[in-house]
């Protein structure tokens, strides 16, 4: 499944492979009036260079927290994250992040929002502007360059924020429910576009979602997360050819993968379809 053989050569220019991410016994606890809240872990995970990995789980299971820890943006309470073998101690900067909300700056045009990366990182303006133009083309944003976010549709805004996360060619892309706020039709299209874009560049992607369809439609591997505290409890390798069809139903394998995830969700009590015995439910509730 992994596209690169051996160690990634980060120094080489051109097609820079993604970084390797390793999480060991990562935990996160929050202190509140009610006492200590164990939000996360301890949990282990690994993402290989150039791999597209989704974390799927019910809302509130700590998957966004896990992403922020992995990005070095909030500290873990215990355990460690290693990026290309190096222990993470400050925010990762070789990274692009997309959140559920576009988080575009309303005082910058779409194009200038993307070029914020160039300004803050002090990169070459011409090179970055050319890349941005290319990204706009690939993301179907041509013509929207000089528009302000308030003049764009929700789908277009999210596309701009994807362009912003990619324009500096980071080796890691993290997305926290990036299509969660979009309508179903837009979501299908943007998912497909993202897959094509990723196939060209093969960044390491950590994709947080609660959509089974998105997880299977995009990932090399899906990590399923439990709730309270959040732990990665299952790993499912998705062995489907790319690019994956928009109609995932065309693959009988898709239904199989989906059923496996539904099964896990039911087992841990995310879903209750009434197919379990009362005894099993009891066990799940106290797992």
């Amino acid at each position, binding site marked *: 499944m992994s596209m690169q053989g051996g160690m990634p050569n980060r120094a080489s220019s051109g097609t820079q492979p993604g970084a390797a991410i390793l999480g060991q016994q990562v935990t996160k606890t929050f202190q509140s009036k009610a006492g200590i809240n164990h939000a996360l872990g301890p949990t282990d995970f690994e993402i290989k260079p150039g791999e597209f990995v989704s974390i799927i789980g019910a809302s509130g299971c700590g998957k966004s927290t896990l992403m922020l820890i992995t990005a070095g943006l909030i500290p873990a309470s215990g355990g460690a994250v290693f990026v290309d073998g190096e222990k993470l101690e400050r925010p990762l900067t070789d990274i692009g992040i997309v959140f559920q909300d576009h988080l575009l700056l309303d005082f910058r045009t779409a194009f200038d929002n993307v070029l914020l990366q160039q300004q*803050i990182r002090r990169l070459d303006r011409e090179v970055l502007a050319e890349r941005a133009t290319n990204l706009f083309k690939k993301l179907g944003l041509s013509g929207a360059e000089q528009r302000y976010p308030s003049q764009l549709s929700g789908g277009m805004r999210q596309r701009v924020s994807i362009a912003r996360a990619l324009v500096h060619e980071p080796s890691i892309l993290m997305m926290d429910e990036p299509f969660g706020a979009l309508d179903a039709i837009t979501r299908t299209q943007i998912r497909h576009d993202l897959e094509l874009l990723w196939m060209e560049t093969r960044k390491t992607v950590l994709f947080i979602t609660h959509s089974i369809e998105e997880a299977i439609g995009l990932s090399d591997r899906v990590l399923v997360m439990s709730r309270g505290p959040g732990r990665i409890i299952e790993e499912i390798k998705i062995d489907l050819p790319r690019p994956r069809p928009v109609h995932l139903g065309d693959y009988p394998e898709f239904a199989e993968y989906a059923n496996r995830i539904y099964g896990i969700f039911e087992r841990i009590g995310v879903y209750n379809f009434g197919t379990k015995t009362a005894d099993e439910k009891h066990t799940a509730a106290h797992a």
Partner: protein
Amino acid sequence: MKSPVWRSGFPFDLSLDSRIVKVLLPVLTLVASLVAWELAEIYFQIPSYLVPRPSEFLGRFYTDFPEIWRQTSATGIVIVLAFLVGGVVGIALAYLIVTFRSLEDGAYQLIVFLQIVPKTITAPLFVTWFGVDMTPKLAMTAFITFFPVLVDAMTGFRSIDQRLYHLSRSMGASWWQTFIHLQFPAALPHIFSGLKIATVYAVTAVIVVEFVGSSDGLGYLIVQAVGTMDMSLMFAAILATSLLGLFFNLVVTSLEYALMPWLKYRA
């Protein structure tokens, strides 16, 4: 609102929505009021040393324009400088208060208390401290301008989505880059609403200090005019003061749209 009866015969669009009428209507109202004022004074024989006629003080505004202009500039310069000082201090302090929690708990309460003190009554104090030149005017006006800017800038800095800071940190932004690319422009619309409120306060503040003790400015001119019972000059000076306030409001509003073109597209 369109009146086909009017439109059929006239070469211009004279409906209530048309541009000409929108400009013409307030001008006509103003002229009508002034004419009514003038006629009322003639009819009731009100002496000019109590209430001057519009023809008198408008004439005075014209004949004494060099002097009025000189005093208006003296007052205007104070307002410009006070805006700069009050604006910069207000924005800087708002940034510090929002950034450091301890400052909010400590300093902000004190500032709120200072704001509750009616500041115009402290004008004699400022004059005692700083003399009768520009300094007390500037100090007082900056002090008054500063507060609305502070409050609105704080609102502006607070309105920023916390995840934007995640984003800026992932770009490796320094605090200055975060401020100049993210926080300041995001707070700018709020800062401008503070500045707009400040224009009204500022004009009052300068005039009051000039009343108390000053050797120039429109407030000084008004006090001088009252001293010699020169009511038409006083009214001309009041007119100049109002025009000055209007001018600053216009400047701030134009600056707002020049600096923030994206506001046009906001829903």
